[in-house]
């Protein structure tokens, strides 16, 4: 049994939590087996040195890594490829269970297949499909079986009410991917542009022609996030068409007034961000429709260094918006319909991704220590 990206984030902490859960169940049932834990937290000093050496680069539309962001991250993990799993399985004969930290999702499946001597391109492609279960089926379901052979693999959902079709399997690699045919992973690029998809039975599809191009230098993806202070929000409705027609101007004035009120707090130390549902709450700056609805839900988000400051700024913004004057105003008692108390809602810590970079490594396994034990 191979479990990867323990806890979702795949930090060392969660690898140990999973290891402890397994050990507890085994103890209760009287089971004995060998368990390997593979860790994926990456030493910050190591990342800083590699950054200086020019071996860390942004992945996609991300700014170059700032050394201060490495320090600010709570933990930085790297996505492991198949090699650490292969090493864990071979390190000590008879490992039955592997719990790993952060891994490229297809890695466990690919590792099993590569270990058995199959074509890595097919192994990665099959792993890529199987990591999402029966998402490649119609209707979308939970579990699939993969059959790997020398020059192709086949995919079939376990639920008899679902079927894989050439279209559903081919289209799967669109899902949550930047590009449908070129899928970059640890150590190389999976190229699916020449794949053939054949319907074998009405529920099973055969795939061949996958290619894997090893990259010149082996890279792993680093992932990290930091806490960026605390947030508070208020939620309010608006129904008055005279108010709604001027919402942008009114909010701009309210935000400017709130900033003036908190003049002693440095401007860059906090952010005030309105979300206006009924106007562009879902799409924000990407929204092409400019006409607001007949009623709005206004959520104002305030982020600051402490919860109490965020809540204080949020409260000032709310009362200002409640009583803001505007041209043509005839509803002089208040501008907002507030559904909840507390009127300002503390949301706790805010987090953001701050490391999403590729790091060149000399060895695909050296960053991922393995611990084998008898359970």
């Amino acid at each position, binding site marked *: 049994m191979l479990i990867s990206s323990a806890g979702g984030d795949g930090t060392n902490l969660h690898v140990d939590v999973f290891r402890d859960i397994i050990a507890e169940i085994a103890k209760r049932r009287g089971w004995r087996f060998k368990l390997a834990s593979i860790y994926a937290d990456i030493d910050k000093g190591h990342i800083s040195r590699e950054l200086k050496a020019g071996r860390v680069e942004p992945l996609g*539309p991300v700014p170059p890594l700032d050394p201060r962001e490495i320090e600010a991250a709570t933990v930085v993990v790297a996505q492991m490829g198949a090699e650490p799993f292969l090493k864990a399985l071979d390190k000590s004969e008879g490992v039955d269970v592997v719990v790993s930290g952060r891994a490229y999702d297809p890695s466990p499946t690919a590792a099993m297949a590569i270990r058995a001597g199959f074509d890595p391109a097919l192994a990665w492609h099959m792993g890529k499909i199987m990591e999402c279960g029966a998402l490649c089926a119609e209707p979308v379901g939970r579990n699939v079986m993969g059959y790997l052979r020398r020059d192709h693999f086949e995919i079939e959902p376990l639920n008899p009410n679902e079927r894989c079709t050439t*279209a559903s399997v081919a*289209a799967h690699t*669109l*899902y949550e*991917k930047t590009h*449908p045919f070129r899928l970059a992973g640890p150590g190389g690029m999976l190229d699916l542009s020449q794949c053939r998809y054949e319907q074998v039975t009405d529920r099973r599809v055969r795939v061949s022609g996958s290619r894997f191009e090893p990259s010149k230098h082996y890279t792993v993806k680093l992932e990290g996030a930091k806490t960026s202070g605390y947030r508070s929000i208020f939620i309010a409705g608006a129904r008055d068409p005279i108010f709604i027609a001027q919402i942008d101007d009114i909010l701009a004035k309210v935000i400017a007034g709130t900033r003036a009120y908190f003049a002693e707090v440095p401007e860059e130390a906090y952010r005030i961000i309105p979300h206006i549902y009924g106007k562009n709450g*879902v799409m924000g700056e990407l929204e092409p429709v400019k006409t607001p609805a007949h009623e709005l839900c206004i959520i104002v988000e305030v982020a600051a260094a402490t919860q109490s400051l965020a809540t204080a700024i949020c409260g000032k913004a709310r009362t200002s918006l409640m009583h803001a004057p505007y041209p043509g105003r005839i509803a002089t008692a208040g501008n907002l319909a507030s559904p909840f108390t507390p009127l300002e809602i503390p949301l706790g810590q805010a987090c953001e991704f701050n490391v999403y970079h590729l790091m060149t490594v000399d060895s695909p396994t050296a960053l991922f220590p393995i611990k084998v034990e008898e359970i």
Partner: protein
Amino acid sequence: MVDTPLRDIAKVIRSKNAGPFEITLDIVFKSREDFEAVKKSGVITRELVSQLYNVPTQAIITFGFFELVNAVKITLPRPRPQGGVGETDMHAAQQHVPLQEIRVPWPAS
């Protein structure tokens, strides 16, 4: 021929994160014929995407008609990293709607 919205033509029109820094949009057609007809209409272009999503054409990460999957795939930079302050759509699952409204000349049904 009638100007017909893509939501009445395509099988799938969806949006989702592709990692925390990108939004990817998929338009999957019911058949190769539909895919070819939409492609040939010339309506779906980088310029149209740029206009619909208020994104400069040079910032578009992926734009293409992919015959093997009868699909158009478009990948854009996220306005801000997933889940950060100011987030409007954590999973970017509701950013597809402007694509539904694209109108293509289509045989009257």
